[in-house]
C-alpha cells in the first residue's frame, strides 16, 4: 500500500517541532528579543505562497481578485522579511563583550 504524501509532510512537521524545542531551549535568555524578531522574519517565508498566488496565470488580466490578494500578501511579507532581519541585525550588533 502506498503512503499518502501527507504523512511525509506531517512527519517533517512533527520532527521540526522537536528540533525547534531543543534549539529554542538552547537560546540564551539575553537574546530572547532577537529570537522573536528573527522568528518573525523567517515565518514570512509565507511569501512563497503569496508569489504563487500573485503569478498564477489567468485568462483575462494579471489583476484577478486572487492575484490581488497575492500582491498584497507580498507587500506584507516583504515588510516583515526586510524589517525582521534588519532589526535583528541591528540588535545583534549591539551585543558586545567587555573590553579588556
Amino acid at each position, binding site marked *: 500500500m502506498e503512503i499518502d504524501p501527507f504523512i511525509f509532510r506531517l512527519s517533517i512537521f512533527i520532527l521540526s517541532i522537536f528540533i525547534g*524545542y531543543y*534549539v529554542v531551549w538552547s537560546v540564551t535568555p539575553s537574546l530572547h528579543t532577537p529570537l522573536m524578531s528573527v*522568528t*518573525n522574519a523567517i515565518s514570512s517565508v*509565507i511569501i512563497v505562497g503569496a*508569489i504563487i498566488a500573485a*503569478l498564477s496565470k489567468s485568462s483575462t488580466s494579471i489583476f484577478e481578485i486572487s492575484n490581488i490578494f497575492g500582491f498584497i500578501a507580498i507587500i506584507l511579507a516583504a515588510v*516583515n522579511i526586510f*524589517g525582521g*532581519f534588519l532589526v535583528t541585525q541591528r540588535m545583534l550588533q549591539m551585543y558586545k563583550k567587555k573590553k579588556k
Partner: protein
Amino acid sequence: MSANLSAFFYLVSGILFILALRGLSSPETSRQGNYLGIAGMAISIIVTFLSVGNFGPGFIYVIIFLVLGGSIGAFIAFRIPMTAMPELVAGFHSLVGLAAVFVAVSAFLKPEAFGLGAVGNIKLASLIEMSLGAAIGAITFSGSIIAFLKLRGIMSGAPITFTGQHFINLLLGLAIVFLIYYLCSSQSSNIFWFLVIISFLVGVLLIIPIGGADMPVVISMLNSYSGWAAAGIGFTLENTALIITGALVGSSGAILSYIMCKGMNRSFFNVILGGWGANEQVVSSKAKEQKPVKNGNADDAAFLMKNASSVIIVPGYGMAVAQAQHALREMVDALKKNGVKVSYAIHPVAGRMPGHMNVLLAEANVPYDEVFELEEINNDFANCDVAYVIGANDVTNPVAKSDPQSPIFGMPVLDVEKSKSVLFVKRSLSPGYAGIDNDLFYRDNTLMLFADAKKMTEEIVKSL
C-alpha cells in the same frame, strides 16, 4: 524547475532557518546565524520564481511590490527606537497573520494555481489545512493589533472584561470548528468569509482581557500562533520550507510563553483567561496604611554607591519608559572608575517582552557578560553592598516569598532585600502592575529615591 529539485531547495532553506535559530545560543554566533536566515529566505524566494516560471508582466509587479514592502520594512527597522521593540514585534506578527489569511483566501479563490483542485471541488485535506491557516492567521492578525495598540499606549493597558466573556469565547471557538466542518461539506465561499470574520473577532476578544503586565506572555503566544498559521499554509502549499519554519516558530513562541508564565508563577490559562490586576487593586488600596519610608536624594545615593565594593543594578519596565539606560551606563562607568564592581540582574518578565531589558542595556553599550539572569545572580545579593532598583517593582517584592495570601506568592523574585542597602528609584509609592504594595519600600535598609528614573540617575552621575 522540477518539483523535486525545488522541494530539495526548500528543505535547504528550512535547514538554514534552523541554523539561524541555533546561532542565537550565544551572541558571538548570532550574527552569523542571522546571515544564514537571510540566505534561506533568498533561496526560498528565488526557487519559487523559478518553479512558477511565469516571467510575464506579473513578474515585474511582484518585484515592484517586493521592493516596496522591503523598503517600508527596512525604513522601520532602521528608525525604530529600541524601547519600542515590543510593539514593533507585535506589529510584525499582525502582518504575518494577515499575509497567511490572504494566501489562504487566494488559494480558496483559485485552487488550480496551487494544484489543489478546482473551485467548488477543492481537495478535502487542502480545504481543512487552508481554513485552519486562515483562522489562526486571522486570530494572530487581530490579536496582534490589539497587543500593538495596548503596548503603544493608544489603548489602555487595563484588562477589559465583561460578564459571559469566557462563554462567548468558547461559543466562538466552537463556531470556528463547526464552520470548518461545514465548509468542507459545502465548499461555499460565504462560509469561508464568515470563518475569517469570526476568527478576527476571536483574536480581539482573546487579547482585550489581558493586562499590560502580561504582555510578555501575549507577545510570545502570538509569535507561536503566527508560526502555526504559517505551518497550516505550508501544508496547503505542500511546501517544506514553510512547514519547517511554521513548526520552529510555533514551538519557539510556545517555549517563550512557558518561560514567561513560569517567571510569574502563573499557569498559561490563568494568563489567557485574563482580568488579572483588576480585582486586586481594590484590596491594595484598602490595605494601604501610612508606614514610614526612608527618603533619600541623589547625593545620598552617590555616597552609598561610591563607598560600596559591589553594586547590583535591577532594571525594569520603568527604565524603558524613562529611557534611562544611557544615563544608567554613565553612572556605572563612574562607579567603575571608583573601583566598584557592578553587575546587572534581569528578571525573566522584566519589561514588556522576553529579553526586553537585555536589548536596552546592549543599546547603551553595556557588555552582555555583566548582565545576569535571575538564577545566576540571585545568591549574590547577600554579598552585595547596594542594590539599585530602577523601574522594577513587583519582581523585587519579598511578599512573593512570605505571604501565601498575596496574588504573586510563589513568583520567583530577585532577593534584593538581602543586600546591605537598597536604593529604590520610583516616582511614587504607588503599587506595581500587579496592584500589590511592595514590602521593600518600608524596610530599614531601603532608601527611596522619589524621581523620574532618568533624572535621578543623571543627578547621581553629577554628584559622583
